[in-house]
């Protein structure tokens, strides 16, 4: 059974079709990376999967359960999917520790002391112990994003969605975040990642998917996709990246 199965997904905003007849299958422990220009539908796709957007047609099967069915408890579904955003979106009025333990306490019914022990273990594993009692404003962007990722994985989600998580960071900070994500891959986390970082796609992706106009134009191993692109669209996209010095 696959961890995630998207069947015939369609989503439009008004008259504009953002995702059209998209199929995607993600096995357990697999990491797939979505690439494509801004507006290609990557973020919308991720937001559809964690039910922040409603799809117009098709099915989303998470771990054997149709989470796109009418009447499904969306809060429960979201509690089992981790999501991380470009802008971190940490809660500024809570400390790092409180940010991470909020969902365990409120959603998963874990006692505060237990949640704090879990969170502190996670923070120390990724070298953020000192920051546990600080407020997010005092952290660097890379630290904030790493905390946001830990907040998303503390309850061991079935699936982790990463939406352009490095786009707001400079290269040094990007490296910190990417190394954390590589470790999560080693842990066996199932991930779907939207990114502009091709080096990162090369490093962690089991498969790279190229999106344009809400469709998967081409997919394959990172090597195939980045070295031997077939479609004209992907070639153009890679050429543009190369021109911008971002390949």
């Amino acid at each position, binding site marked *: 059974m696959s961890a995630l199965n998207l069947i015939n997904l369609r989503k439009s905003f008004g008259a504009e079709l953002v995702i059209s007849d998209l199929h995607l299958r993600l096995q357990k422990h697999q990491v797939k990376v979505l690439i494509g220009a801004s507006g290609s539908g990557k973020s919308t796709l991720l937001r559809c999967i*964690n039910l*922040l957007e409603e799809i117009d047609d098709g099915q989303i099967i998470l771990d054997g359960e149709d989470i796109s069915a009418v009447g499904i408890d969306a*809060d*429960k579904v*979201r*509690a*089992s*999917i981790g*999501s991380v*955003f470009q*802008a971190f*979106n*940490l*809660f*500024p*009025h809570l400390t790092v520790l409180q940010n991470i333990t*909020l*969902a365990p306490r*409120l*959603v*998963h019914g874990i006692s505060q002391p237990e949640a704090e022990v879990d969170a502190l273990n996670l923070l120390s594993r990724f070298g953020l112990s000192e920051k546990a009692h600080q407020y997010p*404003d005092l952290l660097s962007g890379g630290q904030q994003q790493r905390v946001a990722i830990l*907040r*998303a994985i503390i309850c061991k989600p079935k699936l982790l969605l990463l939406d352009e998580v490095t786009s707001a960071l400079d290269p040094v900070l990007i490296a910190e975040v990417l190394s954390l994500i590589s470790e999560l891959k080693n842990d066996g986390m199932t991930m779907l990642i939207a990114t502009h970082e091709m080096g990162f796609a090369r490093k962690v992706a089991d498969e790279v998917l190229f999106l344009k106009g809400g469709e998967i134009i081409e997919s394959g191993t990172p090597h195939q996709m980045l070295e031997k692109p077939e479609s004209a669209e992907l070639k153009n996209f890679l050429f543009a990246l190369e021109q911008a010095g971002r390949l």
Partner: protein
Amino acid sequence: MSYQPSALRLQREASRRQASRRSTTIALLSTLAVGALVIVVVTGAKGFALVRESFFSWHYAVHSFPSVLSGIWLNLRVMIIAEIFVLIFGLLLALARTSKSPVLYPVKLFATFYTDIFRGLPLLLVLLLVGFGIPGLQISWIPNSAVMLGTLSLILTYSAYVAEVIRAGIEAVNPAQRMAARALGLSQTQAQRFVVLPQALRKVTPPLLNDLVSLQKDSGLISVLGAIDAIRAAGIETAQSFNFTPYLVAGAIFIALTIPLTRFTDWLTRKQDRARQQQGQW
């Protein structure tokens, strides 16, 4: 090694000190000039002697002080009770107005209606309508004391203002915060309670306190219903002596009561501004 300011920094600081000395001098001179002008105009006025006797009489001030002070004790109790209820009702109204739940739609409609009406209605009018209208209904279990009904009027009016302030705060919280909370599996209510509301209240604390200061002084208006508060007590003293000094005494006490809260508001605003400046969030 101890900190050694550079020559440029010392020079810059010296220049700043000089500039600040100059502006202090100017401020002092202009204040003296304006003060002198006011004194000359007021004391030179034809009726000054009369006004001084009937508004600034030390004798009447001392004489009326005890009864005005006992009146202010009523104002204090009214203020505190009203403030507590205003914060509770204001919060509930704000939550109702920002709610998106279809079940709560009638409540939302009511809250919108309510704030429209009570923000538009002059407080004096509310006091008269509630203070004289409700006893007129002659319902036995509704209290008809002037103090109770006066306090109720204050609560009715100020809840509407406070609700709007809190609503503005809720709407000023970045929608991404709510989205991030929902993405973690928090319900709509949990996201509101644990993520949005704490941030919203922090944002609106200064304007909220400002409304409370305003409520404190407006507690004096319940005197129109006949409650013996500080203003009413001053009025009674005045009626006996035809000297208006007791009103000034009441005014001074009101100012003394509101100053701590206004200073606290200023201090809090400055603190928030400084914090924002440090984070570069302008």
